[in-house]
């Protein structure tokens, strides 16, 4: 919405006025975020801010992953939280039962969830639009039932807790811990965002968009559509599980409520707010939602907690009612980035010059 226009304005400004590569500019604007904890005093309110940013970062990764699958590849799912939950549980269970350290359990969680996504995706991605959305909604429900079923292993309703040593920096005090988590999650957002973005603008990403636009035509181009859908699904699941796994270690518990329909729907809210299909939109939207939730709706105007989801969902529903194209197009004008992407433009301009020269020397028949 608003953010998309701001992003575009900033981009035009960066490219046309400053003539500085927008990536460099982004880095410059990114710096304050890096120094934030050092500048602010150690206090409860700083801690609060850092917490908001930590969870915002995790949601950002989660939303960006969903955006790749839905905004770029057009495979609408409404149960993305299943990967988040799987990530949480695998890492917690590996930590508690296998005794592995964090830097091993988290990659394991990502690996297993990605494999599971291929297993799920194989039947799920073959069905048409609304069916995929429904099946994806049913999955977290099934997973939750299984968690309750195997409650001896998974801790059932209460979740599976980790001792304090399950944290990222167990030795630190509360404030330093928060700061550590802050930098860690910030780093993860940066890395994930860049990777997801690079994939989105690569030729594989173009194939994703071709599937979004016209699956049939894509097949007519020799593309194995199922294979690419699975790829998008798996990549998406990988990053979603990453955010879930980190989340588990920050809260030191894996909970079945991490897989609720509300969390899955919130990803829709975040990407709609930030601009669907742009990857960056998901990230921006996530932070935006967290900020509104933690500051606007708590500090500025005190709204009871139960009302928060209602308000967000209500806003998005109204938005979709007024601009259904906004969500069914899936991709806002943010796909200009495929055209603006320096690489293709530079290569293109270069080739075009060569081509023109060639044309002049060999007249057309």
């Amino acid at each position, binding site marked *: 919405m608003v953010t998309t226009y701001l992003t575009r304005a900033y981009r035009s400004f960066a490219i046309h006025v400053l003539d500085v590569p927008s990536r460099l500019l982004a880095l410059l604007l990114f710096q304050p975020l890096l120094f934030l904890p050092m500048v602010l005093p150690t206090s409860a309110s700083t801690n609060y801010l850092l917490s908001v940013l930590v969870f915002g970062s995790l949601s950002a990764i989660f939303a960006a992953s969903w955006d790749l699958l839905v905004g770029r590849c057009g495979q609408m799912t409404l149960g993305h939280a299943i990967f988040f939950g799987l990530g949480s549980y695998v890492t917690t269970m590996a930590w508690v039962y296998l005794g592995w350290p964090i830097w091993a359990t988290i990659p394991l969680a990502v690996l297993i969830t990605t494999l599971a996504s291929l297993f799920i995706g194989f039947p799920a991605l073959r069905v048409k*639009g*609304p069916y995929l959305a429904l*099946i994806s909604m*049913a999955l977290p429900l*099934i997973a939750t039932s299984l968690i309750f*079923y195997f409650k001896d292993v998974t801790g059932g309703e209460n979740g599976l807790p980790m001792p304090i040593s399950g944290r990222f920096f167990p030795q630190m005090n509360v404030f330093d811990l928060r700061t550590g988590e802050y930098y860690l999650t910030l780093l993860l957002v940066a890395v994930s965002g860049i990777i997801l973005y690079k994939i989105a603008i690569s030729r594989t990403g173009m194939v994703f968009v071709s599937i979004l636009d016209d699956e049939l035509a894509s097949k007519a181009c020799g593309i194995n559509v199922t294979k690419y859908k699975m790829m998008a699904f798996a990549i998406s699941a990988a990053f979603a599980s990453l955010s879930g796994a980190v989340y588990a270690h920050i809260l030191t518990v894996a909970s079945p409520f991490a897989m609720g*329909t509300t969390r899955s729907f919130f990803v829709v809210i975040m990407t709609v707010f930030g601009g669907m299909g742009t990857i960056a939109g998901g990230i921006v939207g996530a932070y935006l939602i967290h900020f509104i939730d933690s500051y606007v709706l708590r500090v500025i105007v005190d709204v009871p907690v139960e009302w928060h989801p*209602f308000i967000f969902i209500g806003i998005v529903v109204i938005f979709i009612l007024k601009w259904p194209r906004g*969500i069914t197009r899936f991709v806002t004008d943010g796909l200009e980035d495929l055209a603006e992407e320096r690489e293709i433009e530079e290569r293109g301009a270069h080739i075009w010059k060569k081509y023109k020269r060639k044309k002049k020397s060999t007249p057309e028949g």
Partner: protein
Amino acid sequence: MGLVESFLIYGAITGAVYALLAVGFTLIYGVADVVNMAHGAFYMLGAYIFFSFALELFQLNLYLALILAAIAVGIIASVIHRIFIDPIAEDIIATLVVTVGVALMLQQVMTIVYGIGHVEIPPFLPGSIVIADVTVTYSKILAVAVSLILFFTLWTFMRKAKVGAAMRAAAQDREVAMLMGINTTRLHMLTMAISGSFAAVAGVMISSSTSQMADPFMWLFPLVMSFSIVILGGLGNVKGTFVGALIVGFAETGVVTFVPEGTYLKGAAALAIMVAVLLLRPRGLFGKHIELED
């Protein structure tokens, strides 16, 4: 031995009651081409409103409370359709997202009004009867009776009454129906009212005869069940819904009866059926919408 009888009898009971739940879903799809993700939410709403009328607010006679709850949800469903669905009905993806949004909003409203825990849904009739070595509560028998009566009333209505014919016409071709002078918007609202009130009755009957409670998250399971049944039976086909409901009912009962602690796996059975149907025979048993490649 006792397990098999239990399976047969409870399977039939579950199937019959599920038919009532699912028929609303298939109806609104068949007539208005809407995949209503909030269908389970109407089920939930029915249970909660019944609770309010019966226990909290008015201490009404249970049957009166049931009827009022059905009417109330019917009206609400109709209004929701008008406000949230009708404007964007042509757009499948938008309807999906909006109806899920509506369902979640209703979930939140229930949380705000009733709290996050569960509320009690009283049974209709005390006592039970023993059939073939299986104990069946009178509540369950009532639930089956109510479901069958309503289901077949709807069936007859669709076949005989003028409005029923209008619904069937609209189901076949919306534009032509409009040209014939049928006010499709109002027709759809009526259809949704029926759909919602049936879901509400199902909500009351099922929760009062089984778990005897309602919570704000109970809407997802009936939705998955309805979807599974309707996919199996064929979207938009009322007869198919009945058959589908029986099959799913037996499948679920089978899992619950024969698998140790199988109650937790109820949803898995429905999901498995749904996936199997979508992969092997996407139009379901009786459906006519054949999803062509192009």
